[in-house]
């Protein structure tokens, strides 16, 4: 009690600094002694500690997945190459690769590990990021490149199709019904749909497929697919995958219905048709459902083409 009487209570911000280890040794001792003798400051100290921990744990949620999983890309090595002519850049890159790999690799690192790390290091030379490196299956390592583009507006070419679809589908869609009406969409077994898609069909990985519906392309290309998937909690999402001109009107219908649409993912441009009729198109993929857009975007990161 003598202590607390000798000195005013410790201000809250000083308790933060005390907990943060930002006080001088002398200040620390002074506060520690006060805390020993003062019940009020001890309880205040406990509250400060709780707020500190709570705020730190909240911030810990807002961390990119790559960092959460401890995947750190190699440092930039373009500039040193330009500046330090004499240095064996290859060796430096290999070393960096090794460091990165040791951070990446779980204990089960196989012989493909070094190779994988190298891919990672080299890709970063040019500012490319492998978004995901699946170390359990080394052969699945690949690079994804970000593009900044606005969502492609609906193509005029397919507006007729859009009108046809939308006339029957302007009403708000009940939660338990497939978001696009079924008449123009042919149901197909998943395996058959994959065949129609030439062995490749977008879906959320790790979630069972309930059914697939297929819609012919308005431009005579790859059809549009609607893969219905059931999440573990029973909610449904639909993965829409189709050529750019075909998917845009579908998205318009979905937007009008009030259902939530994820950000749009697109494939590399690919050829549609053959010979003189061949033209380049791009497959667009969205995840749709009665969920928050954050949840849907999280599912986009789990999309797989198979």
């Amino acid at each position, binding site marked *: 009690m003598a202590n607390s009487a000798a000195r005013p209570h410790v201000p809250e911000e000083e308790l933060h600094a005390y907990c943060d280890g930002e006080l001088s040794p002398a200040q620390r001792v002074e506060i520690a002694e006060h805390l020993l003798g003062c019940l009020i400051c001890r309880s205040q100290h406990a509250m400060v500690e709780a707020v500190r921990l709570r705020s730190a744990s909240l911030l810990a*949620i807002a961390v990119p997945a790559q960092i959460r999983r401890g995947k750190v890309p190699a440092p930039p090595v373009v500039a040193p190459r330009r500046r330090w002519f004499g240095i064996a850049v290859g060796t430096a890159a290999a070393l960096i690769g090794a460091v990165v790999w040791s951070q990446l690799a779980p204990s089960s690192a196989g012989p493909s590990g070094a190779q994988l790390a190298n891919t990672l290091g080299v890709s*970063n030379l040019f500012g490319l990021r492998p*978004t995901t490196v699946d170390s359990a299956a080394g052969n699945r390592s690949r690079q994804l*490149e970000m593009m900044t583009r606005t969502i492609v507006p609906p193509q005029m070419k397919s507006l007729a199709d859009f009108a046809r679809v939308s006339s029957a589908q302007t009403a708000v869609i009940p939660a338990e019904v497939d978001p696009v009406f079924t008449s123009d969409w042919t149901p197909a077994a998943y395996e058959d749909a994959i065949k129609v898609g030439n062995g490749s069909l977008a879906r959320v990985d790790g979630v069972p497929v309930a059914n697939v519906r297929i819609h012919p392309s308005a431009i005579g290309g790859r059809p549009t697919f609607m893969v219905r998937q059931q999440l573990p909690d029973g909610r449904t999402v639909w993965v829409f995958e189709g050529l750019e001109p075909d998917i845009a009107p579908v998205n318009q219908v979905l937007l009008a219905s009030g259902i939530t649409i994820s950000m749009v993912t697109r494939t590399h441009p690919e050829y549609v048709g053959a010979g003189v009729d061949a033209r380049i198109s791009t497959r667009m993929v969205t995840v749709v459902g009665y969920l928050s857009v954050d949840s849907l975007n999280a599912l986009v990161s789990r999309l797989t083409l198979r």
Partner: protein
Amino acid sequence: MAFDIDGLYRTTYDSVVRFLYRKVWDADRAEDLAQEVFMRALAHEPEKPRSWVFAVAANIARDEARSAIRKRKHLVLMTHEPMVAPSPNDDVAETMDHAEQEAEVKRALEMLSPRDRDVLLLWDAGLSYPEIAEQTHLALGAVGTTLARARKRLVEAHDSMEADRGEQRRTTARS
């Protein structure tokens, strides 16, 4: 002493990405900007590399926020192969839960004043009070006060959202 970019990178890369991520809310963009920060560090060889890196990161993030008025959408350019190999241990429900939790943290952070938020993020990035003071032009004595306020507001903002959500659930259940 030679400028140790590798050391700087190893010790601060994660923090810089986290710091940038909480400003731009896009993991890939945050990594791109972090690369940019370290490229600039290589060119400048700053005297106080740690503070310097976060000062530059803050500037870049500010420029980014201004240019975001263009309202771009990020689109992923995929290969013909699977787009992303999801982490095998990562459960779908977990991924979604995380996205929702993160959105709440983001909203809570947005309720702080820019200064409070900066101080909080810089502290979380590993900067000391003097380093934070230098960067934010706050008096050293004001850092603790600001940080204390920022932490409390973040927790309060988040708790009030949780409470609202609980209230909404009850309302929905009743109707």
